[in-house]
């Protein structure tokens, strides 16, 4: 019914297994619930991709605050933007930028798996699907940068 949970010892209660005098000693692989991802570089790469959500979420909340301050008038908005200039704001936004870039590259790199393009019998090579996403990303970035008046 229930299989032994990884990381927990088998309960010793219950009737001993019928047998030839020796109890069964099944091999139970112990897996840490919290630190399993430290065991292999592949797991760490997976987790680095997953934790980008913390920074995307925090950035969304920051933009929500900016919109709230914007709706309260010029003084409120400008004092909010001034607080971003504190060291904590700069470091936080650098982290957001780094993890946003990691989300973008890891997201685009799996697009051949997520959006396979079939042409007749064959599938379009993954590099074209990834390349198209990177091309759109560069164009979108340039459009925003020009629209925002950076360049």
């Amino acid at each position, binding site marked *: 019914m229930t299989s032994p949970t990884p990381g927990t010892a088998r309960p010793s209660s219950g009737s001993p297994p019928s047998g030839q005098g020796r109890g069964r000693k099944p091999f139970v692989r112990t897996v840490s619930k919290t630190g399993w991802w430290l065991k292999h570089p592949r797991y760490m790469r997976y987790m680095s991709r997953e934790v980008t*959500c913390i920074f995307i979420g925090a950035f969304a909340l920051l933009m929500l605050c900016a919109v709230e301050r914007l709706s309260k008038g010029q003084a409120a908005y400008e004092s909010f*933007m001034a607080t971003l200039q504190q060291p904590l704001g700069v470091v936080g936004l650098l982290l957001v930028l780094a993890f946003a870039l990691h*989300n973008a590259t890891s997201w685009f790199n799996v697009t051949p798996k997520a959006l396979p393009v079939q042409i007749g019998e064959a599938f379009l090579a993954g590099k074209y699907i990834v390349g198209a996403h990177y091309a759109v990303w560069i164009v979108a970035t340039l459009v925003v940068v020009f629209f925002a008046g950076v360049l």
Partner: protein
Amino acid sequence: MAKSNKPIFWSLFAAGGTLAAFLAPVLALLFLLAALGHTPTLLSYAHLHAFAANWLGKAFLFGVIALFLWHAAHRLRVTLHDFGLRQDAIVAVVVYLVAAFGSGLSALYLLRM
């Protein structure tokens, strides 16, 4: 067979992830420039207020904030499970409520401008 609500949350996760992949880096760059004292024109009060006064600007800001929130909420739910927090029912309610509340607030603030 019971109906599953998984496709709804997964669609919002995927849509938000795609939008974040294309736009989060450059938007973070704009805010970083402002934090470094080189505020881009768009992030000045007059320009951003004019942008948010336009219905197209409102739709853009709402889409970015709401979809980023739903993306982060769904992925955070899975990630907390991966870090060993196994109370999925409670985690799901909390993260989705924050995303829903944040989306609602952003709509409210944008409609006031």
